[in-house]
């Protein structure tokens, strides 16, 4: 059995696994099986990433029908990078899961983990497939499962958040479907490689322009790009902690990948960024997102909600890199895609630990907690350094490459914006640290113990990854550059 034969099982294992997990009784068994499935997915993803980094493209035809007729999975460095991120994050966050899920979800956990596996399978399917309509189907599989997961939240507002997300998410996915319908009507094919071949000949066609617009707006909704981000803060704030931890690290990243795949591979950078003003549009929205997201985050009193708004800002950083449409810009976008997953996962894990003990994520209830839960809040502070962009953290690496890309593109004024939003990040992280370490514990507040090791160890693991990849950047920068190269079509040669 070759690696190519195994490649689709990265997605199929969680998909088939969810059917089994759904009927498993109890709590420990479903978790164990889920962990096993996600681990095997992550291992396959790592092998595929290693294979494609050199510039190879893997194509797997389903049912052995040759690609333009059948559905193919087409993997180059760009997909492999995102797929590895999703699979690895699934495995890492699962390590953190059992304690947290045990208090938040009543009864047996089979259905919960089955839904989680469906989300993983959907996200991996989106990244791996080379068929435009297949993207829509997997998008809906992952979205539907995540609506249900969010509705598991203990607060009754989780239901409202899930419903709003359902409405906005479905509108976004339907926009994407309209875009695909236009593409299909003008070209008669749904295979992305085929589309890329046929589209340059009809760049004057209005339907093609409309298709790009619909796809970008649809994915912008899923991505939580600024004016379309309204679903995100509530969904992240009221979902069960484990769900927030996982979705914050992966869901928006996959949407960004789809947008990139269509803008660069299917339509081609010349069309999206030279003929049409996508670059300007994205840059304005990205800058607005960075500012508005950070600004609103500065005044939040609910920790998860604050981090969610910070996510809106971080999506802005990624899109900013994309809008430069250069190799360095795209590298910065992919780099931040990976790094932000590490940062936000660590931050949400630390907040999850606090909620596990205190049952509250409000800033007021955090006062003076630093001395009672030192390990948890130190982890939060260190991950906070990373989101601010202090050297030796991954956040610094992302911003460094964004600065390089801006200067290279002659847009040095972007650096000013980057510095200002970093200072805003410093402010909202500082508020938490100040409350936790420099405020006295209110009178009558209960004594809190440190979070259990089962939660602390995975949290510290992700925090240490933040520093490891902040110091040793060969792996991440190399992979990000290969991914960017694959999208720009120069064979993904590593430097």
């Amino acid at each position, binding site marked *: 059995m070759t690696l190519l034969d195994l490649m689709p099982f990265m997605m*199929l294992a969680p998909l*088939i696994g969810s*059917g089994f997990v759904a009927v498993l009784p109890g709590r420990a068994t479903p978790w164990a099986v889920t962990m096993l499935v996600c681990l095997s997915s992550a291992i396959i993803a790592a092998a595929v990433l290693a294979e494609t980094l050199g510039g190879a493209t893997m194509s*797997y035809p389903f*049912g*052995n029908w040759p690609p333009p007729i059948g559905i193919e999975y087409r993997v180059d460095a760009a997909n492999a990078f995102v797929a590895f991120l999703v699979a690895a994050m699934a495995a890492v966050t699962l390590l953190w899961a059992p304690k947290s899920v045990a208090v938040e979800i009543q009864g047996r956990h089979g259905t919960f983990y089955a839904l989680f596996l469906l989300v993983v399978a959907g996200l991996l399917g989106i990244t791996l497939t080379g068929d435009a309509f297949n993207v829509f189907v997997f998008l809906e599989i992952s979205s539907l499962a995540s609506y249900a997961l969010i509705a598991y939240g203990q607060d009754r507002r989780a239901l409202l958040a899930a419903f709003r997300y359902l409405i906005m998410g479905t509108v976004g996915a339907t926009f994407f479907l309209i875009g695909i319908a236009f593409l299909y009507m003008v070209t008669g094919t749904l295979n992305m490689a085929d589309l890329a071949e046929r589209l340059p000949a009809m760049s004057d066609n209005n339907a093609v322009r409309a298709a790009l617009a619909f796809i970008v707006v649809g994915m912008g909704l899923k991505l939580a790009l600024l004016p379309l981000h309204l679903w995100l803060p509530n969904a992240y704030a009221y979902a069960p902690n484990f769900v927030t931890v996982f979705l914050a690290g992966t869901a928006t990243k996959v949407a960004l990948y789809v947008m990139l795949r269509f803008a660069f591979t299917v339509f081609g950078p010349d069309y999206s960024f030279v003929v049409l003003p996508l670059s300007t549009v994205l840059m304005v929205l990205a800058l607005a997102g960075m500012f508005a997201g950070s600004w609103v985050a500065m005044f939040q009193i609910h920790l998860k909600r604050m981090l969610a708004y910070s996510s809106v800002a971080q999506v802005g950083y990624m899109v900013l890199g994309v809008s430069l449409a250069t190799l360095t810009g795209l590298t910065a976008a992919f780099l931040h895609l990976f790094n932000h997953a590490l940062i936000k996962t660590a931050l949400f894990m630390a907040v999850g630990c606090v909620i596990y003990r205190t049952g509250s994520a409000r800033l007021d209830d955090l006062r003076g907690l630093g001395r009672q839960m030192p390990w948890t809040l130190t982890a939060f502070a260190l991950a906070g350094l990373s989101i601010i962009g202090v050297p030796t953290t991954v956040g610094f690496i992302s911003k460094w490459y964004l600065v390089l890309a801006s200067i290279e593109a002659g847009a040095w004024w972007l650096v000013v914006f980057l510095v200002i939003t970093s200072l805003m990040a410093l402010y909202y992280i500082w508020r938490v640290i100040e409350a936790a370490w420099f405020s006295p514990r209110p009178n009558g507040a209960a004594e809190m113990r440190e979070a259990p090791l089962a939660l602390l160890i995975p949290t510290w693991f992700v925090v240490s990854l933040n520093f490891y990849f902040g110091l040793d950047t060969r792996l991440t920068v190399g992979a990000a550059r290969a991914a960017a190269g694959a999208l720009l079509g120069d064979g993904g040669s590593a430097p």
Partner: protein
Amino acid sequence: MKNNGILRILARFLIPLILLVGLYIQFHGEYSPGGGFQAGLVFSAGWILFVLIYGLKRGLDAIPLKAMYVLSAAGVLIYALTGLAGVLLGGRYLEFSDLLSNPQAAQQAGIIIVEFGVGLTVATVAMLLFTLFARRRQMWDEVLDEQALNDEEDSA
């Protein structure tokens, strides 16, 4: 609606016909219009009509809730394992031509099996959705009844 003669007689004619049409669409799906999804929905529509006339309890006597859960998972597994058979025989996922000696017959057989899985899942999931919503209503009615009873006791 059990007591309405017209409905009962009509349903008695219609339900077997609907179920039959469902099966027809299922087993002609591989070569002519039809297939598991449509068949499953038509089949479950027959069952839902039965429930509307005779009540949920008798509907669940015919197909218990637990059976629905198990069958819906089984349908997905039939699909997935048939696809896996292609891989085990050295081909691609969902490749059927190696299942039998004649590749065309094998393709047809593969599609029939897969569509059967789809039909099973769709039919049971549609029934499940209906049942879950209907039972929710029933639970509410019971809660309301209880409240009404309590109120009466209070006032008495």
